[in-house]
C-alpha cells in the first residue's frame, strides 16, 4: 500500500511541477515600471519543502525573501517556484530548476540537503542557497543559510514560564529532526532558566531535552493528529503551546481557542501578522530571519558576489529574534520584559550560552 502511495505522490509531484513550469513565464509584466531595470536581469528560483509556499512558516518566509528582492529590483519578477508535496518531488523539482536559466536556486529545508548536494555537484556552474542546512564539507556552489533558533526560543521559554498560570507549558513538533528540535531545546532551557532564577517549578510537557524525545506528529500534514496532540497537551495542564510544525501550527491555535485559557507561541515568522485569524492567541513568536537571509543571498548573487560562506542567523545579527508581544504586552509584567531584554543581551555578549545539539 505504501509503495502505491509513494507512486501516487510521485505522480502528483510531477503534476505540480508541470503547473509550476506552466506559470513561470509572465511576460506582460516584464516591462515593469520599477526604475531599476538594469539590476533586474537575474533569475532566482526556489524549491520548497513539503507544506507548500503558503505554509505561514518557513517555505512562505523564504518565498517572501525572493519577493522582497523583486520589490527591491535586484532580481527578475516572478521568480520560478516549484512546490514539493513529498520527498519524491525534490529531484524532479530541482531538475526542472536546473533546466531553466536560474541564476540562483534556493532550496528550502533540511530535507532537501541530499538532493541539493547531488544537483550542486552535478551542475558546478549553477549557484545554490539552502535554508536550514550546513554541510560538513562545504560545497563550492552552495551557500548554507542556517539559524541558531534556540537562542530566540530560549527567550520564548522564559516568557512562557513567566506567563503560565497552570505552571505547565507544552511544545510539540512535526518530526524529530534538528531544525524542529532546536526550537524545543531552546524553549526547554528557557523554562529551566526561569525555574532556576525564580525558584519556581514550571514544567515542560511534550519535549524532554535530556531524552531528546517528545510529542511528534510524524509528518507535516496530519491535521487530525496535530489537533489531538495539542488537546492532549492542554489536558495535561499546558496553557502555553509552542507548535514547531510549519502549517500544522494552526491546529495548536485552534485547540487553544477551544480551551479559551491557552495561548500559542508561533515559530519561523511573526504569527501575529502571518496568521491574523489567531492574532488574539499569539503570546509572541520565535522568528527566524529566513526572508532577510534569502533576500541578501539573492542580492549578492545578482550582483555577482555569490559566496559559499554560510550565513548563521543569531540574536546578535538579528537573524533570529522574538516578536513583539502585541495583545499580551499589558499582561506580561515589566519586570519579565526587562529580564528577557537582559537575557538577550547576555546571550549576545556571550555571558550566557544556550546550547543545543542541533545548533550550528
Amino acid at each position, binding site marked *: 500500500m505504501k509503495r*502505491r*502511495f509513494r507512486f*501516487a505522490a510521485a505522480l502528483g509531484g510531477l503534476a505540480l511541477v508541470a503547473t509550476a513550469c506552466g506559470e513561470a513565464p509572465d511576460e506582460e509584466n516584464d516591462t515593469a515600471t520599477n526604475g531599476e531595470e538594469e539590476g533586474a536581469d537575474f533569475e532566482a528560483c526556489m524549491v520548497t519543502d513539503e507544506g507548500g509556499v*503558503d505554509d505561514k512558516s518557513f517555505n512562505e518566509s523564504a518565498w517572501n525573501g525572493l519577493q522582497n528582492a523583486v520589490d527591491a529590483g535586484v532580481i527578475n519578477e516572478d521568480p520560478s517556484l516549484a512546490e514539493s508535496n513529498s520527498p519524491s518531488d525534490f529531484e524532479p523539482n530541482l531538475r526542472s530548476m536546473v533546466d531553466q536559466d536560474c541564476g540562483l536556486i534556493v532550496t528550502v529545508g533540511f530535507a532537501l540537503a541530499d538532493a541539493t548536494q547531488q544537483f550542486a555537484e552535478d551542475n558546478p556552474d549553477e549557484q545554490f542557497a539552502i535554508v536550514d542546512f550546513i554541510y560538513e564539507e562545504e560545497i563550492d556552489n552552495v551557500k548554507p543559510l542556517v539559524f541558531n533558533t534556540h537562542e530566540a526560543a530560549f527567550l520564548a521559554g522564559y516568557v512562557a514560564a513567566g506567563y503560565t498560570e497552570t505552571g505547565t507549558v507544552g511544545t510539540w513538533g512535526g518530526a524529530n529532526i534538528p531544525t524542529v528540535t532546536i526550537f524545543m531545546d531552546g524553549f526547554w532551557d528557557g523554562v529551566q532558566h526561569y525555574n532556576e532564577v525564580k525558584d519556581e517549578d514550571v514544567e515542560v510537557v511534550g519535549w524532554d531535552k535530556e531524552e531528546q524525545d517528545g510529542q511528534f506528529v510524524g509528518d507535516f*500534514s496530519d491535521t487530525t493528529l496535530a*489537533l489531538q*496532540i495539542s488537546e492532549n*497537551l492542554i489536558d495535561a495542564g499546558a496553557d502555553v503551546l509552542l507548535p514547531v510544525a510549519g502549517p500544522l501550527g*494552526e491546529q495548536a491555535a485552534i485547540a487553544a481557542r477551544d480551551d479559551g485559557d491557552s495561548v500559542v507561541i508561533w515559530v519561523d515568522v511573526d504569527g501575529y501578522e502571518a496568521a491574523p485569524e489567531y492574532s488574539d492567541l499569539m503570546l509572541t513568536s520565535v522568528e527566524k530571519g529566513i526572508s532577510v537571509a534569502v533576500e541578501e543571498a539573492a542580492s549578492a548573487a545578482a550582483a555577482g558576489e555569490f559566496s559559499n560562506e554560510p550565513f548563521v542567523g543569531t540574536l546578535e545579527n538579528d537573524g533570529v529574534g522574538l516578536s513583539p508581544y502585541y495583545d499580551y504586552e499589558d499582561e506580561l509584567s515589566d519586570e519579565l520584559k526587562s529580564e528577557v531584554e537582559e537575557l538577550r543581551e547576555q546571550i549576545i555578549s556571550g555571558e550566557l550560552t544556550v546550547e543545543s545539539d542541533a545548533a550550528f
Partner: protein
Amino acid sequence: MSTARVLTRSWRTPITLTVLGAVALVVFGLLAPPGEHSTFGVSTGGDLVQFEPLALPSRLVGILLGIACLALAGWSFTLVARGRRVPIWLSITFGVAFVLAFLTWSVAGAQISLPALLQGALALSVPLIFGALCGLVCERSGVINIAIEGQLLGGAFLSGVVASLTTSVWAGLVAAPLAGLLVAYLLAVFTVRYYVNQIIVGVVLNVLVIGLTSFMFGRLLSPNPETWNSPGRFLSMKIPILGDIPVIGPVLFDQTVIVYIMYVTVAVLYVALFRSRWGLRVRAVGEHPEAADTAGIQVNAVRFRNVLIGGAVAGLGGAYFTLGLSGLFSREMTAGQGFIALAAMILGRWNPIGAVFAALLFGFVNNLQSVLGIIGTPIPSEFMLMAPYVVTIIAVAGLVGRVRPPAASGQPYIKT
C-alpha cells in the same frame, strides 16, 4: 487431514491469549514497582454527577488483571479442547483487560483522564470509520477502492469551500458527499464500464484530487481565507440522559452531528448488507458475479451504484476534517488516512461493525501513544508512533486469523 488443519487453526487463539496474558501478569503486574498509584480521571467538567479520580494501586491491579487475562486464556483452552470455537466476546474481554493492565502499568505514579483519552481516540477514528465503510461498500460488490484517500480529501475540500462561500456549515455538509460522489463516479466509469485496472484508476484519482485541491488551496483558499477558507465548525450537541452516563456519555453522546451521522450510517449499512435483499444481491455480485448474473442481477449496475454510495460515504467523512475538527481546509490534510481506512476494513473482515472496532482500535492506540508520551514513558517516541501499526499487525495475525476478501474483489465482470 482436514481435522488436523482445523485443530491447528483453532489452537492459535488460546496460545496467543496465553502468551499475552503471561506478559500482562509478569510485566504489568509482578515486575511493576510496588507502592505506586495509577490515577484515572472519570468525570469531565460538564458532567452532572462528578466522581473523584480513581487512584488504583498499580502493582495489585496489574496482577489482578494479569490473572484475569490468564483465566480467560485458560477458558479458551478448555473451549477449544471440547471442540468449540473461541467466542469473539472472549477475545474482546481479554483485549479490554490487557489494555487496562497496560494502562495501569504505564500510568503508575501519574494521572490521565479516561474520558479525554477515549474522546481523542474517537476523534482520530472517525475519518477511518467513514473511509472503511466506503471501502467495504465498494469491495463487497467486487470493486477495490484505492481512491478513498481522494474521496475523503475531496469531501474535506468541497465542504470547506461551500461552507465558506455560503457561510453555512449545513450547506458544506450537503456538498461533502457530492465531492466523494464525483471522484467515485470517475472510478466507476473507468473500472466498471471500461474495465480498467481498479488499483491503477484509484491511485491516479488520488493524485488528481491531491493535485487539484493543493492547487486550488494555493490559488484561492490561502490568499483569501476570509472568503474561501473560513467554513466554521459544527458545535457538539449533547444528547440528554445518554450524554450524562459517566465516562462513555461525554465520549459517545456529546459529539458533532457528523459523528451522529456516522453512528446511523454504520447501523444502516450493517442491516442493509446482511439483512436486506439489496445486501444479498451486493454480496452475490462480489462473491460470484456469474451466478448473480444468471439469477438475473445486473452485475455492473450494482457495482456502479455501490461505488457511488461508497464515494458519498467517504465524502461525508471528509467533512469531518474541515467542519468537524479544524474549521478550515489545509493542504493534504487527510495525510494518508484513506489507506489506513483500507487496513481497518480488512481487519474488520469487510463487516461494518468489525471495521468500526478496527478503526477504534487504531485511533485508541494512536491517541494512547500521545497521552502516554506526555506523562512520560521510557519508550522512544518513534516507537510509540509505530504502536498503532504494530497493534494492528498483532490483532490481524494473532486474533483475527485468516481473512478472506469477497471472491470477485478486484476483477472486472465482463459478460461473455
